[in-house]
């Protein structure tokens, strides 16, 4: 029952993030560049929820974004799925109590996601390769994501551990070793 409630909350959060991203962050930008909240969201699910949930949520959100905005389906689907998968790997190997590790993960995964999406589009759609413009946008986006992670970290942690208790139950002891 509680698990169902958590799933509903997560889906609602995804929609809220979508509306934030398409309205609020369209004008609340750093030099015209938006953050990418979906990467943070997928990372959060991958870190705290059960094993496959990060990957599945990443794929579903990616598919949703593809359907709404892209011409070809599959790029965000694969990229966000990979982000969720990497997050579950991070969950096994790193502590989640430190703000710094979460920040580094956010930066790393944002870079992974955007590089995959950009180069996939380059190969599929045949756009011009503009490395410097791309790097500039990527850098600002990573900084924006980091600032947002710092702000919402306490919320992430509180809700995250609540979720972890529900999904992982007795396996949670591994956290202390």
């Amino acid at each position, binding site marked *: 029952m509680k698990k169902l409630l958590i799933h509903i909350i997560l889906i609602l959060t995804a929609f809220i993030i*979508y509306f934030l*991203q*398409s309205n609020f*962050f*369209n004008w*609340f*930008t*750093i*030099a*015209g*560049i*938006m953050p*990418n909240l*979906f990467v943070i969201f997928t990372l959060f699910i991958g870190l705290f929820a059960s094993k496959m949930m990060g990957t599945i949520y990443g794929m579903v959100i990616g598919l949703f*974004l593809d359907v*709404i*905005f*892209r*011409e070809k389906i599959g790029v965000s689907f694969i990229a966000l799925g990979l982000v969720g998968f990497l997050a579950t790997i991070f969950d096994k190997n790193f502590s989640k*109590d*430190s*703000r*710094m590790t979460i920040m580094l993960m956010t930066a790393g995964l944002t870079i992974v996601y*955007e590089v995959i*999406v*950009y180069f996939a*589009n380059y190969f599929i*759609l*045949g*756009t*011009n390769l*503009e490395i410097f*413009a*791309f790097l500039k*946008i990527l850098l600002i*986006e990573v900084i*924006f994501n980091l*600032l*947002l992670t*710092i*702000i919402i*970290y*306490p919320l992430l942690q509180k809700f995250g551990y609540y979720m972890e208790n529900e999904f992982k139950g007795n396996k949670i002891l591994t956290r202390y070793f």
Partner: protein
Amino acid sequence: MYRNHKTGILGIVITIILLILIVVFSNGENNASFFENVASKLVMPVQNGLTYLKNKISGNDTFFTDINKLKEENEQLLAKNSELEQSLRELENIKTENETLKEYMNLTEKYGEYKTIPAYVINRDISNYSKTIVINVGTNDGVKEDMTVIGDQGLVGHIVSVTDTTAKVQTIIDTASSVSATMSSTDETIVCKGTLESTTELKAMYIPTDYNIIQGDSIETSGLGGIYPKGIHIGTVKQVEATKNVTDRYAVIETAVDFDKLSTVLVITN
């Protein structure tokens, strides 16, 4: 990490303030003018009153000495007035002439020959790397794939997919978009592509070496390629970048449509 709870909250507050400051200052003029507006609204009534008072007081002592001057000025102004009236009549003539000429050239019918459906932009892209928009008309309104979308100033893009009530539009500033265009003065064809760097500029590449590109020249769609009809305004040539190799040169084209403020568009249906 933050054992002390207070330090943690302080950190978050500082980050929020920092983020807002970065956003405000990085976006330059727009926000600056917003703050200017607020500031001027606060100060203006007082300032107006003070200026009014000052003018009243300082105007008093000059009132009597200026009568002679005023008479002279009056005569001058009367003469000028009749002169202006004459030129106004002349301008009126030119205006009517201009209108008949325009009709002659069928300029008014240029966009009239297309059937259009008005639409609102209901969604903008959430990614930094592509510039797709979603509009609120779909197959129910008779919109199909590959139809051309224009704004009040010029070309916006074309429709890449439709649902019953919405349609996805790939704008011409998207990096995956390329439009075949002609220059108005020379009738030569170039290809305009979207860039990552700017939301107001296109890049015209692969320009043949014998082409003359003139700064400020107006650019229109050429009708080649089958998606866009001929003769829709795209923008003007902002600058021509010469490189060492003539074949590498490119031109920067400023779009007529302001994509940041785009809210209503027209879909051409025939």
